[in-house]
């Protein structure tokens, strides 16, 4: 077997922490005084929200770096961050609906938080679709970076809108507003989600780099062909 890569270690740590944090959240932490057991959804919902926005912020940074340097490396990392952000954002929306039904009494409502989050998920999905349609690597890199930068306008809105506007969604909690017994699992799961997201971004970037290498001859191969270890493949010119 291959030696463990750094991203695999981070992924494993993240998975382990998610299991521990969720266990504490599900069985050790107390139920909330009004929400009862349903409040336990916080331990996955809030970390997903934080990390999805964080990952998209990273994508914004990578997009600027990609445009500035023109290096395929940044383009690949930006793709990884965007896709991870979309996956986490979609998950966030579903978790939110599951939490909203028992507490608010509705599955969905067009309040600012929910609307801006939906815009965020849909737009960055559009960026991924755009990538799949552009054949030339340089053009694809620039265009998707441009789209990410324009679309990022929405992400601060998602975070701050609950403070700026009256909404159905409550404003962000802080350590003062959350019971101390609930903070521990929340923190563990937040870091778990962060590590898992880093793992996803690393894997997806690696995939994108491999694809870019296949497309262009300009990039050096990942490693020398392994000769004997590879099952017999017809060698072509």
């Amino acid at each position, binding site marked *: 077997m291959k030696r463990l890569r750094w991203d695999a270690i981070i992924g494993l740590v993240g998975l382990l922490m998610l299991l521990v944090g969720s266990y504490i959240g599900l069985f050790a932490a107390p139920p909330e005084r*009004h*929400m009862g057991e349903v409040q336990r959804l916080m331990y996955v919902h809030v970390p997903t929200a934080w990390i999805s926005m964080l990952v998209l912020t990273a994508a914004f940074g990578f997009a600027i770096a990609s445009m500035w340097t023109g290096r395929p490396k940044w383009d690949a990392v930006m793709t990884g961050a965007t896709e991870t952000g979309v996956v986490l954002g979609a998950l966030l929306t579903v978790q939110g609906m599951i939490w909203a039904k028992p*507490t608010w*009494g509705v599955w969905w409502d067009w309040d600012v938080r929910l609307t801006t989050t939906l815009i965020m998920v849909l737009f960055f999905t559009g960026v991924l679709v755009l990538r799949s349609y552009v054949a030339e690597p340089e053009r694809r890199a620039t265009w998707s970076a441009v789209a990410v930068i324009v679309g990022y*306008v929405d992400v601060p809105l998602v975070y701050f809108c609950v403070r*700026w506007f009256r909404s159905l969604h*409550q404003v962000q909690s802080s350590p003062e507003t959350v*019971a101390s017994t609930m903070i521990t699992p929340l923190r563990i799961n937040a870091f778990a989600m962060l590590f898992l997201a880093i793992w996803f971004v690393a894997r997806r970037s690696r995939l994108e780099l491999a694809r870019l290498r296949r497309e262009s001859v300009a990039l050096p191969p990942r490693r020398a062909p392994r000769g004997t270890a590879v099952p017999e493949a017809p060698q072509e010119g």
Partner: protein
Amino acid sequence: MSERRRRLVITLVAVLVSGGVLAYLALGGIGENLVYYWSPSELNASGDQAIGASIRLGGLVEPGSIEREPDGLTLRFAVTDGEESVRVAAKTVPPAMFREGIGVVVEGTMRSDGWFETRRLMVKHDNEYAAPGKDEDLDIKELMKSMQFDESAT
């Protein structure tokens, strides 16, 4: 090199303008007016103009105001923001968290007889999460803060 610097300046200006406009949206106070729901005071202040329009009303369920009609279908309570209140007739099953002093958002219309009629009743939870057994304090000022009414007061 000067071409590069010129573009850098242009980019910087664009970023500053966009950021400034976003900051203005945030701090300029227009958010208070683009409300997702009206407070009872605002609704009462608008008087007859609000009658018949589709409106969202948000506030706290006034303690001691909850009544259930004998038919078991209509729920009556008052929504308050600490200063004024509006009587609400809700033809819906309330969510389980519905209680005295909790934040609610109701969607419906103001009737000419002074009742706000709704079929969509949503509970607005604040950002406090506490273990059971903690003393329940119906501090209206604190609860109002969670409904973000204090911002419109200042």
